[in-house]
């Protein structure tokens, strides 16, 4: 097997990761592994960065900037974005798999949204919130998540009418949720 990065040397390092029962494999040579490793210090970051590479290349092929092949490194295709608050760039993000500041989550939202879906059980926070005494969990969010699962089931069973109802319910919950949220923020 040939290294997926340099495409020259024999691949001797095989990295496998299973997320949500989807297997991802990366086969690379010693040299490329060392190079990658020197860049971010640990293999953990490497896996993540690679997931992001592939995902951002998918985004890219869809938006008309040219068909990207899944295995090509993406940094060259993705229009470079810079976070106005902390100066973090798409390149920083792709190389290190880390973000620069809280604001980066807004700036890199598009690249992140698909990646987060693959990494986690859901896309919406339902756990605890900051502030002592504020122990209530985001109940609307939990409801929305439940409905989202239901929606997927309906679609799978081709029950489109029920799916549409569920979809509308989700939309109304999302809208309702917006008003109180802002009030909380203003306090």
């Amino acid at each position: 097997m040939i290294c997926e990065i340099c495409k020259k040397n024999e691949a001797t390092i095989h990295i496998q990761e299973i997320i949500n029962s989807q297997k991802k494999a990366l086969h690379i040579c010693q040299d490329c592994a060392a190079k990658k490793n020197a860049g971010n210090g640990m293999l953990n970051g490497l896996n993540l960065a690679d997931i992001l590479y592939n995902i951002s290349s998918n985004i890219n092929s869809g938006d008309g900037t040219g068909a990207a092949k899944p295995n090509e490194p993406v940094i060259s295709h993705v229009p470079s974005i810079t976070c106005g608050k902390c100066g973090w760039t798409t390149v920083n993000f792709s190389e290190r798999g880390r973000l620069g500041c809280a604001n980066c989550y807004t700036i890199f939202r598009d690249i992140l949204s698909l990646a987060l879906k693959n990494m986690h059980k859901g896309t919406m926070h339902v756990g605890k919130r900051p502030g002592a005494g504020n122990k209530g969990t985001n109940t609307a969010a939990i409801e929305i998540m439940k409905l989202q699962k239901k929606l997927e089931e309906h679609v799978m069973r081709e029950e489109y009418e029920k799916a549409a109802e569920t979809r509308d319910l989700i939309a109304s919950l999302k809208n309702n949720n917006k008003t109180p949220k802002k009030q909380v923020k203003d306090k």
Partner: protein
Amino acid sequence: MQDNPIDKLFEKRVSWLADSGPEDDIAISSRIRLARNIQEIPFPSNASVDHLDSSIAAALVAVEKAKCFKKFYEIDMTKLNPLDKQVLLERRLISREFFARKQNTALVMTDDETCSIMINEEDHLRMQAMLSGLRLGEVWNIIDKIDDRLSAELPFAFDETLGYLTSCPTNVGTGIRASVMLHLPGLVLGEQINAVIQAVNKLGLAVRGIFGEGTESLGNLFQISNQSTLGEMETQIIDRLEAVIRQIINHEKNSRQKLLQNRREFLMNHIGRSYGLLRHSYIISGEDTLNSLSALRLGVDMGMFSTVDIHTVNELFVIVQPGHLQKYAGKELDTSERDIFRATVIRERLKSSEKK
């Protein structure tokens, strides 16, 4: 001059190893850490020296004001010598990443070593609580309260949809990493460990060796932890992990039973020889030590030794590591000096437990 807190720690036994906890023959310890960042300050890897200093100052003031802990130490990591840092790492009070960090970092830890807060690790705050045995629920209650108190004093970076914002998107949401350290010699000897690891991975949980790199694990110690941090409540994540851990513990028990029934001499030989090696060596490598300690621990669990108790073995797992050995010796030791000193320490510990 302030006493060195590391020296004080050193005079005591490691609490999460010396205390008894439920299922602690197999589940050695339970730990939960939460990742939090302070609003308006860039994450540590993208922060200036001023930023790093302000996150340390803010965090330390918050810890004082929030009265999270009765008795605790504040440690300026930049002033700590490498050996003391190594001791903190070996006692699992700091992470490998924190140990290696060259920027301004600080540590808060309780004197009983149950809780610690790393400041300016990958995130501004990484707080952890740790107890012996399988006690994730209790550990969660401890860390949840500390987080509540701190969040009354510190504005944490939080988003309505994404939850707590972290430097790495793999931690976003709850910022929780719950883990249990398991001793699984039965599954390793019974050659079932790979099947178990694969099954656990399929459930979206991570398995890591405590010592050694990758899947190879010295001492048959494994850490099982959650991967997903977004889309579930903290308690759901913890319950799911605990359910899997309980299954693994059952598999381990079955595997031990099978070994005892079907391969009795093989098992006794393995344990007996390991004890001999530990009790009578004058030079012993770290690797040999960890693997022999694992066998001895198995023997103790199965009631084969009346003279050695489980906490002695647990503690040996920590004090045979390079940092602790050198701290005991009171001087730097190179690898071959360590192998000699390690053998001495182990011989003496086992000998003194025989006398009891």
